[in-house]
């Protein structure tokens, strides 16, 4: 008897299985359209094809998300905070002090430093977002761009500086010239007033003292 009940159970489960896949085939006429998780209807859509034809169709990206970093170099004051806070050191900055007036950023902060190099290596980036929180002028933000894969890994080192090498060299020369002039000015001032020369004793004392521990820079996270 078990023989026949087994066969009957087999037929029943076969029918059940086939009807299940048939239902899915019939539902394949529809595609799931509610792709945005923010949509309140998102979890109610249970049926239909789930495939997303990626480059042609994209999921909407949430407003607050961590994707590719973007720097608005015109608003950047080259404070170097982002490079210091970065846990993986993916931001490379070469600052050159400006001799001339650079104007102000869009939020009114005065700009004093040229960015000869401002590279963000997205291949190293760990998407923690710390650099965007410490940025005082909010010029460094995380954009909605997430598809930045390249054939060459060096292409993932994004360069934000708008300064050419020649211009940077010129600025360096200007700075060196300015500093030289300043030194010269100082020297002439010192020559005019040769007072308060530290005694040799004092200098020796200073040398004997243990060098003070260098203050570790700690960027502060702004309170919202």
């Amino acid at each position, binding site marked *: 008897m078990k*023989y026949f009940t087994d*066969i009957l159970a087999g037929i029943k489960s*076969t029918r059940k*299985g*086939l009807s*299940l*896949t*048939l239902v*899915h*085939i019939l*539902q*394949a006429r529809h*595609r799931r359209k509610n792709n945005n998780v923010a949509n309140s209807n998102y979890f109610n859509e249970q049926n*239909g*094809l*789930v*495939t997303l*034809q990626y480059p042609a169709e994209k999921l909407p990206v949430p407003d607050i998300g961590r994707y590719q970093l973007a720097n608005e170099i015109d608003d950047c004051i080259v404070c170097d905070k982002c490079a210091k806070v970065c846990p993986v050191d993916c931001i490379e900055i070469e600052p050159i002090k400006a001799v001339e007036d650079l104007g102000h950023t869009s939020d009114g902060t005065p700009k004093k430093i040229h960015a000869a190099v401002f590279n963000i290596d997205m291949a190293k980036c760990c998407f923690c977002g710390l650099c965007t929180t410490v940025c005082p002028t909010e010029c460094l933000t995380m954009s909605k761009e997430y598809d930045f894969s390249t054939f060459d890994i060096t292409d993932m080192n994004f360069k934000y500086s708008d300064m050419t090498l020649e211009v940077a060299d010129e600025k360096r020369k200007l700075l060196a010239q300015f500093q030289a002039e300043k030194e010269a000015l100082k020297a002439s001032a010192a020559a005019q007033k040769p007072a308060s020369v530290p005694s040799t004793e004092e200098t020796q004392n200073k040398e004997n003292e243990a060098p003070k521990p260098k203050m570790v820079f700690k960027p502060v996270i702004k309170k919202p």
Partner: protein
Amino acid sequence: MAITFLHTGIYLTLILLSVLVVFYAERKVAAFMQDRLGPMETGKFGMLQAIADLLKMIQKEDIVPEKADKTLFKLAPIFIFAVVFTGFCALPLAADFQASTINIGLYFVITIISLDVIGLLIAGWSSNNKYALFGAMRAVAQIVSYEIPVGLSVLAVVITCQTLDLQEICFQQSTFINPNSSTGETHNYLLGIKALGVDVSQWGGIFTWNILRSPILFIAYIIYFIATLAECNRAPFDIPEAESELVAGYHVEYSGFRFAIFFLSEYAMMLLTGILAAILFLGGWNSPLPNIGSLKLYEWTTGVPGTWASIIWGIFWTLSKSILALIVHIWIRWTFPRLRVDQLMYLCWKVLTPFALVVLLVSSFWKILSI
């Protein structure tokens, strides 16, 4: 001679076209069942995917393993395809379209299906690979076992039709009379019972199909269908090729064009059993639409034998019926998990074979009802 070449060409073209269609359907149906889209990039809706795959395979390097038995290794795919393709020559695709008009066509085709095993064993043995040999062994055990239910269910049809001539079997399921008839059967009764007094000889269509000429043949068809699934090594009976345990089974060492030939013959084998099922149970080249009074739907959609229309309609109906069966194959493949070896043998020897014997017995009694 010229006719032979013409037939070969047409049969080969039809097989290739059907295989392309089924191959595309396989991917799409699988995708839809799993809530995916399937191939979409090659051509509109990925319709060129099968051709792209073929081109890829032709470009691949032809690798023959160093420790393989090279002669047999190279022979195996050709052997398998030749065997399967030979089977097609006995199948009538239309009333006047049959490569070889042999009066024991059914016997011939069943033999050919068994011969396929030798090709699989050659491939598995000559590869000199444990997975290939395992696969080949399993394939042989499985196919030889499942010959029995196939043979018995086919015998039930032979009892109903009293002939081994496939063209005659088709004619018996039509309203037309075979000019070369060997049985002289001309009348069909509803459900094969003469006592009901309903003569459906002129209705045609689905009423004269074998599954309605003798309803017990419907069960025979189901047995035949399950058994051919196993003979074609299709899931859930794909233990000879079990991807997860044997990598690919007997064709694991094959690559490029040789693999493509294996692939082609596997699908051609499915098509062969599908066409055979269409001829034996589903009316062969006959249209499913019956004549209703003056609406001669059956005659319009089948064509009078001897005309071009009948050949085109015939090929259309035979191929669509078999491709429909193959789509059910695909449906089953993507629904059920693989059987264990002992379950496979249990199903064959303890379920299908006794049931096929009972069907054989009942169909012989049913035959008495129609005389």
